[in-house]
């Protein structure tokens, strides 16, 4: 069953990635990107990396997309065409909502049972030992990078 969900996630991701390229409206392109990012997290989950799937949803589909939408809202009017004018077919909007729901049900149904032969939850502990072992310097550097990036956005807010 999980291979079927993987195939569904791959097809939906490819479809909405292609749709995203041709969207005139930035809103529509952002929605298409959000759906692709959710499919990527489904792929991570069924590849045996539930932690990465969670982080993908939290960081990418959550935080980054919120910033993208805020930036679109802050854009001059001619850039941010309202979503309504893009005339997205209703069936496509329904499919865009139904597919993640079906995948969430599949994830809940199979939670823990990794699909690919070599994958497994055993990979999870090795992430921590790698991050704070041989990759400790890189981990600290990325942590500082995130702090500085936060300051970039904080500076933006302080000026307003």
């Amino acid at each position: 069953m999980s291979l079927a969900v993987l195939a569904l996630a791959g097809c939906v991701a490819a479809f909405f990635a292609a749709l995203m390229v041709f969207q005139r409206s930035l809103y529509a392109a952002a929605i298409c990107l959000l759906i692709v990012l959710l499919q990527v997290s489904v792929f991570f989950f069924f590849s045996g990396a539930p932690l990465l799937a969670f982080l993908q949803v939290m960081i990418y589909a959550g935080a980054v997309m919120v910033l993208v939408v805020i930036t679109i809202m802050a854009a001059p009017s001619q850039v941010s065409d309202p979503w309504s004018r893009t005339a997205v077919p209703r069936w496509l909007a329904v499919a865009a909502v139904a597919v993640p729901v079906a995948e969430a049900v599949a994830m809940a149904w199979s939670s823990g049972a990794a699909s690919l032969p070599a994958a497994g939850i055993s990979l999870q502990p090795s992430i921590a030992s790698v991050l704070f072992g041989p990759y400790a310097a890189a981990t600290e550097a990325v942590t500082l990078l995130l702090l500085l990036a936060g300051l970039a956005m904080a500076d933006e807010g302080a000026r307003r």
Partner: protein
Amino acid sequence: MTWAVWAVTGFLFACGAAMIVLRRQLLAMLMGLELMISAVNIALVYYCSRYADGETLASVLLIIAIAAAEAVVGLSLILKVYEAGREVETESLQELKG
């Protein structure tokens, strides 16, 4: 299975590259970049699950964090361009103004 993963990741990467090349809006180009990074992450996670390699999983986690930082800095630069009231098309951003 491997060819299917390569097909999806290649297609996503190509769509992201097309966004960067074809679109002139800064924000659309940044979204294309996010798509390209996600495509690379799919390939990395697939191979690390095939060969049970925890190190690749850790590097994907670092890539996600770095890409988030890159998106934040990119978006704050785009907000500054909007705030300066300048054109948002890439052709008009020819020189740096203080």
